[in-house]
């Protein structure tokens, strides 16, 4: 199977339509057509097809949005990641031990993608929004990926370093320094470089044969809860990483 061959046009366009609705919430059919740059008649036909199979739904004011089916499909996709089938237990235990929201992130297309999380104690529905995916230059998981699984020079040659907060690293030299520090300490610290007032600490996960699994387990929460010594959480994180690594299926 050649993943480099261009996808079939309908698949590519359907994916674009879903992407646009996921990003913007609800759009009229003509807004969708404008964003995916397809003739209106083709978009309407495609959208009708997506509505007919329950992936998109029309709402009262004539706009379209993604159906709740996508929630179940995300859960199914998560279940399909069988090598991480124990993630929820391990993350739950980490929450119990640290009180902080805990995350499992994977390296996907040079971004850190959070695939499982457990809410920390006392974290409200209103405040809690797990990160979707982040550039490798921001957040604890990204620096773990850079320290253990990515050629930093090749990455810096390709990637731009976006600024998410005033603390986000945008200087390649500084990023390299932080990556080296991560490798030295065995953990990555993120202090307000993704969201104001939020600190995170993450460690790498090694699978069978001590190979880096392109994965990171981390905890994150209010900076004041982490105080002066966030590294006090490192042992609990290491234990969680060991459990996750040990339970991975071998190929």
């Amino acid at each position, binding site marked *: 199977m050649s993943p480099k061959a261009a996808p079939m046009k309908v698949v590519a366009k359907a994916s674009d339509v879903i992407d646009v609705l996921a990003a913007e919430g609800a759009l009229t059919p003509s807004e969708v057509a404008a964003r995916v740059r397809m003739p209106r008649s083709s978009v309407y036909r495609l959208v009708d097809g997506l509505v007919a199979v329950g992936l998109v739904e029309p709402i009262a004011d004539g706009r379209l949005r993604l159906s709740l089916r996508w929630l179940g499909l995300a859960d199914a996709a998560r279940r399909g990641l069988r090598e991480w089938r124990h993630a929820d237990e391990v993350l739950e235990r980490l929450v119990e031990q640290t009180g902080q929201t805990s995350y499992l992130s994977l390296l996907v297309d040079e971004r850190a993608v959070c695939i499982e999380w457990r809410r920390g104690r006392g974290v409200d*529905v209103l405040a809690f929004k797990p990160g979707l995916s982040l550039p490798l230059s921001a957040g604890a998981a990204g620096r773990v990926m850079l320290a253990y699984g990515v050629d930093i020079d090749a990455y810096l040659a390709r990637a731009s370093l976006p600024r998410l907060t005033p603390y986000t690293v945008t200087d390649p030299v500084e990023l390299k320094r932080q990556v080296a520090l991560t490798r030295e300490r065995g953990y990555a610290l993120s202090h307000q470089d993704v969201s104001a007032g939020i600190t995170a600490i993450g460690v790498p996960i090694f699978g069978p044969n001590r190979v880096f699994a392109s994965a990171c387990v981390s905890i994150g929460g209010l900076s004041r809860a982490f105080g002066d010594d966030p590294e006090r959480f490192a042992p609990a994180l290491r234990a969680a990483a060991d459990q996750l690594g040990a339970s991975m299926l071998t190929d």
Partner: protein
Amino acid sequence: MEMVDKVEAIVSYLALVGESTVSAVAQHVDEPVSSVYRLLSSLVRVGWVSAGTRRGLYRLGLFFLRVGVQVENGIDIRERALPALRRAVEETGQTAFLCVRHDLRAVCIERVAGGDVRSLALWVGGTLPLVIGGAPRALLAYLPEEEVRDVVERSTAEKFAEAIPADARAIRVNLEAVRTSGVSVSEGDVTPGVAAVGAPVFNHRGEVQAALSVSGVRENILGERRSAVIESVRSCASEASRALGWQGEVVR
């Protein structure tokens, strides 16, 4: 559109079985292996499908994880619960509320007026301690066990503007009763002469996300129409839950 039907069939099948070979997929969607192979290649290219845990196996890709989180983050609880709130007002003639948790308190994020609202304390943006009232206690009762313990302990130690019960154990016994009946019934513990009935609203994972309640003068809530009011709140809260993707299972 035929192609979309085929894609959806493949996606549904992989969602069901976790991972599969090309030929098993082809058999299930009743298409030739070669065209399924071609379709899977395209789906891999856009991240909808990825390689499975062993060679020759395919499974749903990370695209679905990303979109799932975006959809979940985009859900406006107020908007989704509004039809249920309106029905509660219609059926009971009383004012309906939707509350979410904020630390030790419940925040009212929506309110649909019915009947006589003069005596009702809670407005949108207003809050009550989680340990009293209709909606707040319905919310609290379905939080995970440790969180309930934590909230009750901290609440009894806290100095609230409102009067709350002093006995932590009594509060927890009360919450147990809420879980048994599925509703919380509040009588005069917020405002004398005012009663409320609340029920939990769950998200698609079965976790409590909010609570729906109706409130009014005691006679209108707990008088002759008591069981009808309770039933309406239960039913409307379930409707609000389904509007969030709830499938029926409760997880604490």
